[in-house]
């Protein structure tokens, strides 16, 4: 039984096919790595799975809460980290106590406008926002880019926590070393799945 199933999801921008019809399933306790060069369709597929982008075709079935870490930090630059977390916590109907827990866990300065934070801090806030609703499925788009080694380890700890709790994780990466964190590899090229190995993606 899968936690998330995407059937024939595709995305076109005019004449450009960003993602060909694609099937993806995420099983409980599974971690999947999406690998491929720039423009392979990894971000598009993750955004569709997260519900942030409407597919041109196909459908996504999911009964569980999804946490999404977009490639680019997605929060309000003039709000502080706390205010961003509080706003999205209210929108998601999450427990307000999660805000303090996440600020502490990711060591975020709570009262500075997030636009003034370092790129690493902004990416950590990005990850923290995805965890507000205690998701069973975590979708991460190159989550460790611009993080130092300590913070990278914390991200993978988050991934391990979700998986250990019976959730599923799917992350996109161009860093072949990070594939080691995955149980399964999905290789993408030119918007299509081309294999299940790193070599297939970059070969």
């Amino acid at each position, binding site marked *: 039984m899968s936690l998330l199933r995407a059937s024939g999801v595709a995305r076109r921008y005019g004449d450009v096919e960003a993602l060909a019809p694609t099937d993806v399933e995420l099983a409980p306790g599974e971690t999947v790595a999406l690998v491929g060069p720039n423009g392979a369709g990894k971000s598009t597929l993750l955004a569709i799975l997260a519900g*942030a982008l*409407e597919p041109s075709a196909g459908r996504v079935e999911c009964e569980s809460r999804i946490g999404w870490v*977009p490639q680019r930090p*997605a929060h*309000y630059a003039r*709000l502080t980290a706390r205010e961003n977390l509080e706003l999205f916590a209210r929108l998601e109907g999450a427990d307000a106590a999660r805000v303090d827990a996440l600020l502490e866990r990711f060591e975020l300065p709570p009262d500075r406008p997030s636009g003034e934070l370092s790129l690493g801090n902004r990416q950590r806030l990005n990850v923290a926002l995805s965890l507000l609703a205690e998701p069973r499925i975590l979708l991460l788009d190159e989550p460790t880019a611009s993080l130092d080694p300590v913070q990278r380890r914390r991200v993978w700890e988050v991934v391990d926590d979700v998986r250990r709790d019976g959730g599923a994780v799917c992350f996109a990466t161009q860093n072949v070393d990070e594939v080691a964190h995955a149980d399964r590899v999905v290789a993408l090229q030119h918007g299509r799945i081309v294999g299940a190995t790193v070599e297939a993606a970059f070969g």
Partner: protein
Amino acid sequence: MSAVRLLLLKDLRVLRRSPLLLGALLAYPVVIALLVGLVAGYANAKPRVAWVDEDGLPPVVSVGGHRFHIGSVVDDVAQQVTLVKLSASEAAHELANGKVVATITVPDGFLDELGTGTSSPQLVLRTTSGGLSQRVTEQVQSLVYQLNRKLQSGFIATNLREVQLLEHGGKFGTYDVLGLDTMDATLAGLPQSERVARLRDFVKVARLALAQTGNALHATANPISLAQPKQKGRTWVLSAQVQSYGIALTVTFLALLLAAGATAAERDEGTIGRLRRGLVSLGQLVTSKVALAAVVGVMLAAAIAVVFGIVVEAGGVEGGEPWARLPLLLVGVALAAGVVGAAGALLGALAREARTASLLAVLVVLPVVFLGLVPRGALAAAWWVSRFLPFAHAVRWFSAALYDTSPWRTLGVETLWLLGIGAVLWLLAGRAVRTLSA
């Protein structure tokens, strides 16, 4: 707390933390109020009109036995224009370079022809073909009308003096006029006969008839007269129209820019993707921007109205700012700003990027405003186009809310227009916002 309210509070907080934008928002109403006031003041200024006297009018003119101080008479009647005495060549030169908007020439022989009382001498009016010519022509027509009325009084007074001579007798040039009073007395001293009695009846009827002559002459000269008692009132510059235009201009400009910028910023900051993951519907997202425009619009309009009001009160103008109408005005502002906000959300979604959205909003708002300023008689096509844009309806709404004695019919009609336009814009904005996260 609803998603719309949360997003609205977030946008207001973001706005509060943008010092430059906040400063501009605070200064804007004052600047707009001043600019509109200056424009209105210019529109209200008297145009310069050259007065060319080719007849050499003396300081005092005698017409029909009545003496006029010509300078005083002209100054008295020239309420709507500033008359400048110039020679014919100077007047022609200044008319050509626009320093005067018209010339009025008193041709040679004017006074002689006027004195005959048998034909009407002509003043010659020359104007440019610019936009002011119609207005100046009307004002000079008014001036001639007023002059005629002054002269008319003189002619009537002269005629009445002659009628009184007939009634009571006296000297008329070299003649000694007997008069009806003396004639009646003379007839009374004669032996009474049927013929004398008939003459005395005639004298009686003639005296009664001549007694009515004064009223008859005035009534013939002025079949309808207009009584215009002087009273204190609000000045034109601070009148309803200017205040309505000032508020509508501010609200349209800022609501469009704010909503466009705030909508596009959701994409710039990458938050549109997060919001669209079931947290906020497209309708709620557009509504939050509409609400932002409405809230900020109401605050700015209130500031403008209060500034106007303080100026009016400080100037001691009776019947100035209708303070009791401000709540009604602000209802209209919320409505109009919301409608413009929907247009802004549409522009922001189409532009997809905050800077482009701001530029696009500025480019769009100017023609929208100018179309709304075009009177129906000036360019019917522009007037019709403006009916489908919110600005003109907002102006009428505000004007009626502020000063109409019974504004409800106008408010009802304009509210329906604004709601209709707003609904269309809201739907279009919702469709456009769908593309933002792509």
